[in-house]
């Protein structure tokens, strides 16, 4: 045992081992820092991915809402042709509320899309007033071809927006 101790003292191995130990500590410190930074980056990436998934889910919901609104408009065109004036005011009102809901639940929607929805809302509100008045006053209803032309234009515009939103998800 004394020989081992003397050997260590003679060749300053004690100091050498301390220096080596210090080097390992320093290397270990930097390895830890690198690992922490890597895991932070990984968690940031995970957070980004989660945000992207939630954004896509919101877009899917919006697509569903737009599709429902377009279907409702197609139904309104059919009811116009069938001259179902008694039930149409309720359909207009329901559709208008759906469109308002789409706008309200998507406050970050492009202004261009919001304006298109606003156009549809105002048009259907106006049509509802016309048909309600005609029903109450027992006057002849508005021109069906003209009404359906307006409705078709809204359908086309909403369809265009729907396609653009779908493309945003596919990117």
């Amino acid at each position, binding site marked *: 045992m004394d020989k081992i101790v003397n050997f260590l003292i003679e060749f300053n191995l004690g100091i050498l081992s301390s220096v080596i130990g210090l080097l390992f500590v320093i290397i270990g410190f930097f390895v830890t820092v690198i690992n922490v930074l890597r895991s932070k980056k990984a968690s940031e990436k995970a957070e980004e991915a989660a945000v992207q998934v939630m954004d896509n889910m919101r877009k899917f919901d919006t697509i569903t809402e737009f599709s429902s609104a377009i279907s409702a408009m197609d139904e309104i065109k059919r009811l116009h042709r069938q001259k179902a004036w008694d039930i149409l005011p309720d359909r207009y009102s329901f559709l208008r509320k759906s469109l308002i809901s789409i706008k309200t639940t998507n406050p970050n929607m492009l*202004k261009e899309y919001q304006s298109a929805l*606003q156009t549809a809302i105002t*048009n259907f509100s106006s049509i509802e007033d016309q048909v309600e008045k005609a029903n109450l006053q027992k006057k002849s209803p508005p021109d069906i071809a003209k009404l359906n032309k307006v409705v078709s234009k809204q359908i086309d515009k909403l369809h265009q927006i729907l396609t653009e939103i779908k493309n945003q998800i596919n990117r």
Partner: protein
Amino acid sequence: MIDKKFAMLVEKLYNKTIDGDIEWEKTDIEGVFQASFPNYSIRLSTEKIHYQEDDTITEYYYFNIYNSEGKLIESTDNYQLSDSLEDSYDKMEKMYHIARRRSLGVEKAIDDLLSELDDDLPF
């Protein structure tokens, strides 16, 4: 009495219409044209009123604002604006007719036709 802010709104819309920055569209009502923004729509219309007292016909231009539910919230015309907006009749008339032409595609039709005629010219 229409306040100055409203007159300013009409003036701004008039200037942007002249510059071609507003997208006017046809509506469900003949002769009524609409421009929409994210939360409001504006409709322009016109009406000729015959005053039997003096047998005159006066043309009015209307400016209506609709809210986010599509309900009318404010309405004015060139006569009500005359105190707050300079040349209110001329401006409203011009804005209405530009809105009509753009909505009906008249300007585009004229541009396309001019283009066709230019192509046919031998020089």
